[in-house]
């Protein structure tokens, strides 16, 4: 029933995109109302998908609604309506091949269809194609930056929904949980090294999303980490996506790069402080995950210890990502300029305050849990100590240094060489990012030749082949 209603807008999309969008939004709103009134109860991931999809539909221009719709229909696990869903997917498949994101879209559809088919046949690990796509396995790695670079992209939506789905149906995937853990850790590490060599903000956002989803995948696959997944990491990733989205949208509108992450300047102090605070809060959240895993490892398996180490490294690297985004601005890859008008400054202050608020969102579920369950939130030792230490240290630093005015302010830059000149004469530092990290990242990139060969293959043929293999597997 749920998918049947949603297929209608997909069909209308063939003739009129605007009508399809309005109809889809209306259907989703009605479904949410029905859920709220108790007439049509929905699962958690369905509600999340509906809400995210509604947000996506607001943007009338560049939104890949089509792919969002595919994710919406495909990921929601209702194998009873398989023929109907398959029909919708085929319709969308035909459409998406004409789009500029067509190739990614086709692979998204292949992975989703396969997930549904394998689930229908009762395979123990139906989500494998989806997971492989999320971690950038062949042939998906070629489109990974595009998939993760934007909050609106289909990859982010699918990945987000997929991990929620995995977490909800963890019992079905228990046999392959170690594989999921491994893939999650691999995704995180690959993301970390990729961030070191990124030269564009789109790449950087992509790697941030990739790191976050790697961590989500890790925590979604372990039953003991359920509280961490639901109450901290998931809200943190949503916050991160929303912050990126806000920055990205404003940046597109202003067109001068001033809203890009890390665009610290002496004029935009509030923006700078809120950006920094956002990273520090995210760093704390990742650290908490690491602490839980190490603690579990000390009491149990070495696997958790290793994962804890990976997570700690990811936390450390989140700060490196921040530094990288800052130096990207400084090195001139982005033309960050300073705003002038009073109204613009006010807008920046508002956005900055919003950023800070969103960064603190991950704390809210903990508070809500605390209220609902009578003041007993999940215990995360690092949350209390680390955040407290950072808060006290920052306030004390501001108080101490705020009172101490500098004796002189001088322009010491005169006579110094520019960064570009330094880059030419002392290449060691500036080339080091790539020289050191590219070979490490290169290890995880499979041969491009295979990717090229797959690119030449018709996706429809590939889909048919995979489905046939799946059916043969079931028969055997």
């Amino acid at each position: 029933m749920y998918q049947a209603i949603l297929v209608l807008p997909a069909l209308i999309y063939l003739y009129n995109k605007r009508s399809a969008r309005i109809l889809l939004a209306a259907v989703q709103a009605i479904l949410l109302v029905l859920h709220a009134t108790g007439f049509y109860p929905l699962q958690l991931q369905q509600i999340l998908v509906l809400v995210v999809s509604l947000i996506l539909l607001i943007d009338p221009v560049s939104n890949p609604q089509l792919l969002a719709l595919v994710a919406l229909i495909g990921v929601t696990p209702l194998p009873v309506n398989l023929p109907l869903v398959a029909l919708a997917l085929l319709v969308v498949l035909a459409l998406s091949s004409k789009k500029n994101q067509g190739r990614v879209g086709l692979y998204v559809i292949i992975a989703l269809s396969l997930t549904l088919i394998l689930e229908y046949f009762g395979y123990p690990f139906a989500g494998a194609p989806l997971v492989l796509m999320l971690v950038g396995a062949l042939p998906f790695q070629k489109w990974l930056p595009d998939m993760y670079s934007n909050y609106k992209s289909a990859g982010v939506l699918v990945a987000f929904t997929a991990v929620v789905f995995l977490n909800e149906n963890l019992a079905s995937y228990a046999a392959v949980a170690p594989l999921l853990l491994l893939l999650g850790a691999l995704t995180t590490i690959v993301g970390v090294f990729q961030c070191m060599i990124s030269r564009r903000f789109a790449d950087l956002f992509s790697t941030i999303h990739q790191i976050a989803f790697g961590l989500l995948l890790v925590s979604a696959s372990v039953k003991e980490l359920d509280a961490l997944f639901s109450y901290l990491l998931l809200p943190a990733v949503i916050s991160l996506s929303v912050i990126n989205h806000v920055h990205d949208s404003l940046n597109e509108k202003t067109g001068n790069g001033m809203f890009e992450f890390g665009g610290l300047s002496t004029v935009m102090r509030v923006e700078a402080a809120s950006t920094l605070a956002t990273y520090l809060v995210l760093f704390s959240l990742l650290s908490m995950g690491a602490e839980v895993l190490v603690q579990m490892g000390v009491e149990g398996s070495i696997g958790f210890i290793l994962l804890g180490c990976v997570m700690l490294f990811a936390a450390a690297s989140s700060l490196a990502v921040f530094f990288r985004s800052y130096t990207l601005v400084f090195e001139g890859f982005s033309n960050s300029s300073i705003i002038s008008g009073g109204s613009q400054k006010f807008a920046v202050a508002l956005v900055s305050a919003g950023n800070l608020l969103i960064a603190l969102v991950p704390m809210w579920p903990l508070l809500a849990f605390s209220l609902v369950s009578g003041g007993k939130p999940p215990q995360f030792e690092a949350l209390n100590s680390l955040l407290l230490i950072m808060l006290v240290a920052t306030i004390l630093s501001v108080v101490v240094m705020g009172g101490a005015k500098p004796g002189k302010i001088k322009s010491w830059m005169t006579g110094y060489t520019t960064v570009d000149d330094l880059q030419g004469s002392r290449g060691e530092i500036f080339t080091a990012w790539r020289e050191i990290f590219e070979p490490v990242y290169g290890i995880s990139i499979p041969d491009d030749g295979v990717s090229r060969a797959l690119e030449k293959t018709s996706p429809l043929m590939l889909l048919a082949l995979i489905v046939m293999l799946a059916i043969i597997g079931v028969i055997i």
Partner: protein
Amino acid sequence: MNLPILALNLALAIIVAPLLDGLRRKITARLQNRVGPPVTQSWHDILKLFRKETILPEKAGFLLRVFPALMLMLSLAMFAMMATVTVQSPMEGGGIIFIELAVLSAFVFAIAGSMSRNPYGVVGGSREVILATLVEPSIIVSLTALILFKGSTTLDDASKSLAVGGSLIVAVVAYLLSLLAESGRVPFDVAEAESELTGGAMIEFSGAPLAMLKMGQYVRSLALYSIPKFFMTAFIPVDMKGDGFSIAVVALYVVSLLLCTLLISLAESLNARYRLLEASRFYAIVLAFSSLALILAFFAPGSR
């Protein structure tokens, strides 16, 4: 939280950290057949800087002034959660938070340098971040191996007694190697090119902010040097009963600090500087060794 011990710990950090740096400089000088500065030289430098005028670059923002103090406070927080001259630690926390604070202070230092907008500051900060990203995995893995032996993440001597074994020795050696890399001295830095290498991040600082940055670095090093103390009871039998001040614990702590200082000085004197890419290979070897220590620690009898 035990406030008297906490106050004692913080006072100890502020007094001892520059002295330990002075001792390192003295030992290094003697190893190179030089007289070297007095042990108290780093203290004199800090006091002199506090008396000097603070001059900031024109384009620098407010955060440039705040970050040195923040770096010092994070380093002090690292030190505050350890049991140094006492059996029990004065503040709640543990090995994981210790690592996180170490990472955080390194990045605060790097970002502070870059905020000056001086190209040398950016270069120094960039180098600092590269080194931190490369060395942190080793510190994380080797410290986790030691945590497995302790069977707890707390940084005190009140947990179970440790047994000497090959695996524990490997874990301690792995940590010391990581410490060598973390210290940022030769073979990863040279005094003659301080402003172009790891000191580059400090190029635009002067007066009190510079003193705070330097003090932050000293305290951070002191905290990292203090870790081996918790595992020395396996090699030097000391009575760890009670939770207050103990002469035996103080003696153990002093031995730990002296050993670490000597190790860093020896490495500084006996090696030439590495280029950054050579250093990255060294870090890879240290990480491999630390991983081996972790695996051995997991399967060693008596760990966890």
